[in-house]
């Protein structure tokens, strides 16, 4: 899968005084893939993105794109473009002028830069609002303008810093579909920072889970969700039980836990109806176990808090954790 056009981090470290924000991270971002950097706040994912963009200097290591070390280049010369969390649209410029800003800085004449900007606005379906000021747009529209502004520089890698966090939940799902479609059409690498695992699972060709300044696990969305390597990943991705059996730690998907008469005896603590599933929390001794039971199955034999149940699962579904 490696090609000469990949983006590669080579032993990248970022220190702020005595604290380490990113510790010796090495990773290859395959060309043309949609990558999500996932992790809790303060894990170093945003810093990593900003180092790739060139808005943060790197303390050690290098960043390689297209076979060139870009770690000392200015942001605009790296072949990357960044879409900011708050979109950072220039409030005094119209939508068209915002998109055309980078071309204006390069000294492209007005007609040519407006043509290029209109092309980008068409790509994000914003042509009809080209004369508006950013303050006159909704959050979703601003997001599209920010996207067009980043894409007008024809970047090789688009960096998105929590692009959906300012949108309401319904819009978020629609916009993430648009992002994915756009990435597929353009065929460039998208690196998308998020702390939402559902967002990462829905979008990413590759999910990179970060914690405590290092990459905890990287792989396809399915790999990371189905085979978490560490307890942190299992807990952060959600939908997993981390169980201590005979001194070894295992991850067990909540939807693999069945409620039977036999099996591990436990007491129901909570029942939560979630539509397709019912989430049953049960205590087996000191161990809390979450079971996601298909709705129909649950209501064949409904349980209430305080009821005794047996928990069972196929031993083959236990997934051993390394840490």
């Amino acid at each position, binding site marked *: 899968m490696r090609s000469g056009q990949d983006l590669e981090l080579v032993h990248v470290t970022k220190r702020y005084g005595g604290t380490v924000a990113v510790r010796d991270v090495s990773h290859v971002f395959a060309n043309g893939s949609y990558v999500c950097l996932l992790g809790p706040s303060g894990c170093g994912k945003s810093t990593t993105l900003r180092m790739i*963009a060139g808005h943060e200097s790197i303390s050690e290591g290098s960043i390689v794109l297209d076979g060139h070390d870009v770690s000392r280049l200015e942001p605009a010369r790296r072949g990357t473009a960044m879409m900011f969390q708050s979109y950072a649209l*220039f409030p005094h410029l119209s939508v068209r002028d915002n998109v055309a800003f980078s071309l204006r*800085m390069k000294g492209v004449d007005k007609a040519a830069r407006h043509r290029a900007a209109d092309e980008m606005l068409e790509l994000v379906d914003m042509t009809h609002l080209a004369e508006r000021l950013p303050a006159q747009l909704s959050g979703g529209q601003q997001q599209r303008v920010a996207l067009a502004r*980043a894409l007008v520089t024809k970047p090789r890698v688009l960096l998105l810093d929590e692009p959906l966090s300012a949108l309401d939940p319904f819009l978020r799902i629609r916009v993430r579909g648009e992002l994915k479609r756009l990435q597929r059409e353009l065929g460039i690498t998208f690196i998308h920072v998020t702390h939402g695992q559902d967002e990462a699972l829905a979008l990413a060709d590759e999910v990179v889970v970060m914690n405590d300044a290092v990459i905890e696990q990287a792989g396809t969305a399915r790999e990371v969700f189905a085979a978490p390597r560490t307890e942190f990943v299992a807990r952060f991705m959600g939908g997993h039980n981390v169980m201590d059996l005979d001194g070894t730690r295992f991850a067990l998907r909540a939807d693999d836990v069945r409620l039977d008469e036999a099996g591990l005896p436990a007491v129901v603590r909570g029942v939560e109806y979630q539509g397709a599933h019912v989430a049953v929390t049960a205590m087996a001794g000191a161990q809390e176990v979450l079971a996601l039971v298909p709705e129909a199955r649950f209501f064949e034999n409904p349980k209430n808090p305080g009821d005794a149940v047996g928990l069972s699962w196929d031993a083959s579904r236990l997934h051993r954790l390394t840490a």
Partner: protein
Amino acid sequence: MQILKNRHVAGWLQAAPLTLVLAAFLVLPIATIVTVSFWQATEFSIIPAFSLENYRFLFGSSVTGRVFLATFRYAFLTWALTLAIGFTVAYYLAFHVRSQSWQIALFLLCTIPFWTSNIIRMISWIPFLGRNGIANQMLISWGVVDEPVEWLLYSDFSVILAFVHLYTLFMVVPIFNTMMRIDRSLVEAAYDNGASGWQTLIHVILPLCKPGIMIGTIFVVTLVMGDFITVRFMSGSQRANVGRLISNDISLLQYPSAAATAVVLLCTVLLTIAILLRFVDIRKEL
């Protein structure tokens, strides 16, 4: 007590204190000045009868035009210099000083000269700029000039220098205030889009500072247009502006004539501000 419950009455009562204050201390004095400006005066008496004589004289005299022009020139030069210095200082404080405590400390440092009175700050230039003052002694000892420079004091130079010294802070404060509100990610976004530091300044920061610049401009322009004491002290009474015209009339007890000049000055300043406000919307700053 029932009447107080009526929301119209309550509203009027709440607005009344400010209305009374403004009526007594703003509307009434201006109305008086306007009225008096249509009166006449001799050396020993004031004639309270309507007459346009003051205005006829004012608009008929070539002195008025020259003095107004000089006043505008002072205002413009002071404005240009305070803007250049004020913007630079504010930019340094807002964008180059990273820690907030240092920003506050340096900002307070800028205000220290304001702990003494205008007059003292003005007069302290005199021994510095005088014929045998510190500046001239220094220039001679460095060999820059052979004999004392005459235009340092009691000239337009010293007047404008004093104005700039007195009023630059009025430019710094509003511009600094606007700059602090600029989202730092905009600067990063400009940088990401390939703008150089200079281009970011011209295309992003300067346009976003316009409201602050406008507020500072209004302060400086109104202060300079209405001033008479700085011009008198720093020009050694050799230069005139509208303020001095008024103060001369007052010292000669020509109140109606002074009032007429004041009315014309007031209208001129209001007109200037109205024109300035056409360019920039400062409402979002208030």
